């Protein structure tokens, strides 16, 4: 069991959160979508596992390299 922190690649806002804490995800599954520079940026699971923490909600601003959620793989 390793903790994998998923960080934001950009400064922007959280547009949609598509998955919830407790969800099982596969590598590449979209967990949430950010909006930055008029682009939709999918935030994907870097490894398969269970989402144990989601640290943001729709509408909030996020900074580059901010931790968005945590997966136990």
């Amino acid at each position, binding site marked *: 069991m390793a903790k994998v922190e998923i960080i934001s690649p950009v400064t922007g806002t959280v547009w949609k959160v598509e998955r919830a804490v407790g969800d099982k995800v596969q590598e590449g599954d979209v967990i949430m979508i950010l909006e930055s520079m008029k*682009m939709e940026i999918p935030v994907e699971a870097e490894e398969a596992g269970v989402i144990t923490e989601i640290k943001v909600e729709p509408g909030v601003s996020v900074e580059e390299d901010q931790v968005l959620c945590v997966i136990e793989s």
Partner: protein
Amino acid sequence: MSASPIESPAQSDTDDRLKELQFRRSEALKMGGADAIERQHQAGRLTVRERLDALVDAGSFKEIGSLAGTGKYDDHNRVVSVTPAPYVAGLAKIDGRSVAIGGEDFTVRGGTTFGSARRKGGQGGFVEDLAYHYRIPLINLIDGAGGSVTSIKRRGHSVFPGVHGFERSVELLGRVPVASAVLGTAAGGPAGRAILSHFSVMVRGTSQIFAAGPPVVKRSLGQVIDKDKLGGSSIAVDKSGAIHNVAASEQDAFDQIRRFLSFMPANVWELPPVVAGNDPVDRCDERLARIVPEKRTQAYNMHRLVRMVVDEGSDFEIQPSFGKSVITMLARLNGRPVGVIANNPMVYGGAMDAAAARKQIHFMELCDTFHIPLVFFVDVPGFMVGLKAEEEGTLREGMRAVYVAGQLTVPTVTLVIRKCYGMAGMATCNKNDIDLKLAWPTAEWGSLPVEGGVAAAYRREIMAAADPAAKEREIEAELKPYASPFRTAEAFAVEEIIDPRETRPILCEFIELAQHRLGHGVGMKTRSGVQP
């Protein structure tokens, strides 16, 4: 010693010398002594000899200069002990290929220079001469803070900067691959030495690098800052790009250096090593057909896209945490080394900022120098815009990327995945080559996108309309069909539009063709002119 009466005095003298050689060798292996080695381990670091063992092929290290050091003698001029030189160097093999390798021994006086007749390592050191004259890669294991003011007293004068200069380090960059691992706190000369490398890596948590450390910063600026905050990997790798990659451990750093060298020729007069392909050339990944979202404002995972195309498991990313809007990775296509430069739509739509430009420039020069063909996976909307971008000199750095791309002579394939706009788009082509531009059907290009471009170009017409917003949309709709990549292909202004699923076989074929020419381009690349 035998006291046999038939033994000649000369024989006895030889035995003594052999014994002395053994003794001196054993002294060298003690490094700075048990206490100093213990301190090195407690700091979470290996000794230089452990590092050499962990990095090179087992048993391949042949030390040169093992006896250099400072001897202590008794009243009869017999050697009592030798403190070894604070630098260990020699020849070794990596994957069976020769390299020159050396590193500071931090357990001996903190790896500072010592008063030998000839420098063993660092800039202008013997290890650089080994790499230079035998035309083999150089590996620097850096763990030292450079010059010490104590040398003033020893010499009786201070030395002018450059007496032990970087000339040889500079020459090496055009001749043989140079890889450096920063494995301790590096300042001054060793820090500079690390930068003059084709590939550099440092260990998170146990290594730092800066022009000057916390004591000097405090004296000069009054800033109090600890060494990790000043020059740990989160600054030196992620923020400044001074060092290319971060490693989780020393072993990881060594693995990365081995990986890097696996793509490199021994020198610029040779071609990069081709290995047997591990992945079918005709593998057509179905997922490629749908990987680019229909909605043009939706990002997708370019890392994954590239990995679906190149030989499985062959990708090695350089600078993954710096200038992230462009991805630079070494990889293989049917066993042949290629340099992949891919824009990353996940990071500001793939817009090229100053950091991304610097990263791309280094990578292009690296691949050009060592005859590694380039493949561009293009999705770039242009240079990054805005005040911050202008302050960072994006325009100048971006044009420098265009300039360096304009000097490439290595075979290059440009594959447009989605957007290719403006001057940043020009940095994805090699006009000295056949300038082959392939595109997926999802591609679009121009000097700027129709959206946004209309507002500027048709400003008067739009402002004069009863409903300006509607007029803008109307003009956009009118122009949009002309942006179809097929119209450009009709004009043969892009050479071919390919089915995304066929990307791998097509790229493999062009990279194989490139081999015919690579052999003609070997040798040193001269780059004349003044970079903007």
